[in-house]
């Protein structure tokens, strides 16, 4: 399988084009089949992945604009592997659990196009190709939110588009500049990250470029203060849009930090450790408080997403193997958990067409299975030990503990605050007497919903108990990444800092 990565990218797009021929009554089966094949392909990638090798595997290289050094350059390592699998998995689950009735065909084909761009972002090794997929992913999402969303859908979709578009254009200028710097140093044009990783940049330039890339990534993550588009997007998006947005699109930003910012600008990253951590902590605490104040179940989960993304950023900017590895694990787990939660909100919304907590109460009595699944997902979101959420959160915080115990202590409140708003949500919605008589007749989850949710629950428990299958390959590549950062840093302070934060578990 020489071209497995190209197949992974373009199979969904090709299937989407073919899908225009499929009759609209059969489109759901078509979508499920295509995404399942895609998922199996990504599993095949996992099986053939050599987890003892830390570098890029399955590389492909075709020059696109040879004069300017832009090439179609793909590859996968331990950092991107599981994000790809998570992407294909969550897309499959979200289509299985899809309950939308309006314009189903358009929706499924759009999701397939979206899947192409998402996989593309994670496998691209050329900055421009990365940018192409990154920007292209906005278009299907704009359509999904804008066409199938709630009342404010147009406002929400445009806000989403413009925010991310603006940020990433600044990032594009940064990329072009970096390409020019590479040309000046070596005499060749190249936009390949592998080539760029060999460049040592002076610290001032690193800072400027870090800021340019930061704008692109931080808006996508989203980090405070650029997070205001997210509650709107989530609040207005249809269930499938929220699931994919939370599970995959947000991860593009954090992935960008790991793939670009850290190895390219090690000194700037060291210098920005504390500022980034502060932004992350503001996100963690502030959005957790905001989440507590929400009336709408979906908004609670949307804000909790921002809060958890803060923990991921914190882990990344611990700049050690535990922190980065943990945040990668947290990306996977947050993808599964928040995807699952949004899907669960979708279930209740389909039945009642409302997401307000005040409308519910005592649901555990009429919908016991639903309540159980919701409970498990919620515990995973809070980070209860032996669920998937615990491992990543613990490792991220452990990683940052080596940097600053005090800041880690503040960030640790995420577990308490998370428990607070989530349990309150659970209490208001599921416990107590049934206050609203309409809720008496609600049906428990069934058929398609079970098929979509059960695999998620199984993963939450399995990976919570035994995270090794993911942690091991991630560890290899992250170790190499930290190594690269150490070697590339130009100032002695940065070198020393990277060395000191990477001493967890060493005997002194």
């Amino acid at each position: 399988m020489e071209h497995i990565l190209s197949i992974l990218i373009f199979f969904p797009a090709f299937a989407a084009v073919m899908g225009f021929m499929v009759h609209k009554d059969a489109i759901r089966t078509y979508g499920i089949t295509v995404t399942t094949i895609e998922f199996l392909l990504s599993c095949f990638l996992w099986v053939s992945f050599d987890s003892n090798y830390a570098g890029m595997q399955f590389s492909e290289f075709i020059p696109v604009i040879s004069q300017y050094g832009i090439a179609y350059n793909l590859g996968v390592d331990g950092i991107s592997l599981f994000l790809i699998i998570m992407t294909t998995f969550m897309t499959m689950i979200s289509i299985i659990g899809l309950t939308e009735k309006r314009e189903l065909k358009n929706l499924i084909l759009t999701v397939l196009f979206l899947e192409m761009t998402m996989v593309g972002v994670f496998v691209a090794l050329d900055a421009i190709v990365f940018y192409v997929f990154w920007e292209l992913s906005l278009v299907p999402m704009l359509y999904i939110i804008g066409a199938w969303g709630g009342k404010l859908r147009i406002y929400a979709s445009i806000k989403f588009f413009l925010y991310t578009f603006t940020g990433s254009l600044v990032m594009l200028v940064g990329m072009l500049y970096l390409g020019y710097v590479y040309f000046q140093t070596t005499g060749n044009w190249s936009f390949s990250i592998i080539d760029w990783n060999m460049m040592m940049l002076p610290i001032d330039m690193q800072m400027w470029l870090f800021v340019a890339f930061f704008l692109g990534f931080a808006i996508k993550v989203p980090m405070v203060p650029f997070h205001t588009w997210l509650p709107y997007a989530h609040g207005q998006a249809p269930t499938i849009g929220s699931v994919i947005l939370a599970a995959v699109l947000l991860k593009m930003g954090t992935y960008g930090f790991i793939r670009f910012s850290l190895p390219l600008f090690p000194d700037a990253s060291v210098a920005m450790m504390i500022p980034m951590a502060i932004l992350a902590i503001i996100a963690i605490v502030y959005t957790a408080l905001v989440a507590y104040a929400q009336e709408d179940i979906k908004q609670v989960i949307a804000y909790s997403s921002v809060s958890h993304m803060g923990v991921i950023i914190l882990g990344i900017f611990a700049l050690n193997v535990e922190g980065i590895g943990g945040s990668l694990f947290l990306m996977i787990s947050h993808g599964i958990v928040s995807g699952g939660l949004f899907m669960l909100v979708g279930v209740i919304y389909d039945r009642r067409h409302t997401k307000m907590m005040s409308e519910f109460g005592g649901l555990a009595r009429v919908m016991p299975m639903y309540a159980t699944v919701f409970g498990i997902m919620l515990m995973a979101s809070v980070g209860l030990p032996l669920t998937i959420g615990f491992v990543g959160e613990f490792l991220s915080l452990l990683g940052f503990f080596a940097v600053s115990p005090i800041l880690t202590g503040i960030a640790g409140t995420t577990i308490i605050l998370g428990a607070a708003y989530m349990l309150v949500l659970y209490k208001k919605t599921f416990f107590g007497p049934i206050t609203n008589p309409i809720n008496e007749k609600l049906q428990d989850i069934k058929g398609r919903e079970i098929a979509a949710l059960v695999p998620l629950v199984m993963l939450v428990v399995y990976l919570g108990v035994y995270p090794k299958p993911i942690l091991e390959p991630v560890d290899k590549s992250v170790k190499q990444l930290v190594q690269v950062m150490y070697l590339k840093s130009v100032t002695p302070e940065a070198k020393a800092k990277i060395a000191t934060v990477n001493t967890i578990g060493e005997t002194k």
Partner: protein
Amino acid sequence: MIEPISVDIEALNLPSLVPMLVAIVGALVILCIDLVTKNLHKSLYVMLSILVILIDLGTLIGYSGATRGFFDVMLMDGISILAQMIILVASGLFIILALSQQRFHEYRYPEYFALFLFMIAGFQFMVASDNLILIFVGLETASMALYTLIAMHNRDKSTEAAIKYFTMGALAAGFFAFGSMIFYGLTGSVELGQISASLVASDFANYPIVLLGVVFIIGGLGFKLSLVPFHTWAPDVYEGSSSAMAGYMSVVPKIAAFVVALRFFEIFVSVDNRWVEMVLYIIVITTMTIPNMVALVQKDVKRMLAYSSISHAGFVMGAILVGTTQATESLFLYWILFMFTNLGAFAMLWVNRTKNDHGFQSDHPFEKFSGLIKLAPVPATIMGLFLLSLAGVPPFSLFWGKMYLIGATVNGGYIILALIMALNSAIAAYYYLKLIVYMFLKEPREDDRIEFMGNANKPLKTVIGVSAVITVTSILYIDPLLEMISTYVQMSGF
């Protein structure tokens, strides 16, 4: 007694005139046919024009290297050949749009097509010379024909547009002539090459007067390029002329003027003349930004596209300011990609033109396109493609132009300008999205009298289809295209 002038016919190097002569002869042939038989169907003239354009294009391919001729006023160098190719391809696509389903006033007259070919010849002269007088003659030939073509659309607004364009254009011509005069007075020559040499030799003596000359020339070219603050005519004129003509005007006269601007500002940019560069810098930034802001609040798609094309012209002026070889390449790359996308977008408006308006204020208000995806999915998707491309969303064609242009700007050391370009692209995304929102996200109007694609037939659909394919598949041909452009640009040494 005046000495008899004897000119060796060999020395004239008449082959350097062939491409323009082809167009002129073509126009005369059309006039002759009209003398012999009246009331022939427009398709004859359209096809004749296309044949003439094809021959014209064919003669261009033969040139290699800078050829001078006709008392040395003609200069067929790389950029002039490239610009003529753009002009001819755009003209070819445009004239096919005349085969519209509905009958329009102007196409009844064979003179329309003759004028059209004269105009092409005018633009060709304009780009194929570095002599200010011949540039002026070319400019006026083309403009006079263009005014008439607009007026022949024969609606109140078209006449208004033509008169507005004519008066403004006359003023611009005056500016240009005055600027040329100043440079003649300063340097004793109207050849840009010699002007440059003599200005540099004297180290820009009489600097205030040089600047005055520059200001006049900027005024003259600024009108043609619709640079801020000389842009005010553009939206009204675009609105008054037919959509096809508006699309044509946003591409062809501008590339001709860009080439002149390139030749002219090269004198100053190549020696880093601070004041001229600053003036250019301000013009570039305002031209990018102000029309972008104004476009945000437009209610008519055509006016929106008009403002957006002004902003695109500002972008490309940036390349002239940067002045490196890569910037010049990016100018042509950008404009070639812009030509297909923008002509496609205007052609989409053209095919939706209906004669009876339905109580709308203008021809193409945004509301008219509400829910188009449900009524006519294919046109809506194609229009969406053009708009995304104009907004610079990858991998559609104009993204590559934008990327290469911003890259050239960065490489030329103008990081701030590159950032402003990037932010302007983000602003522009909003108004392009606005139409996408109307087409894809809103419900159709409860008004079944609106007829979409009313003006469409096979030839028009072909033009749109070709533009759409070129817009989508850009990634496949960007490399060879860039190679061709750089061969031609490096041939002429810009």
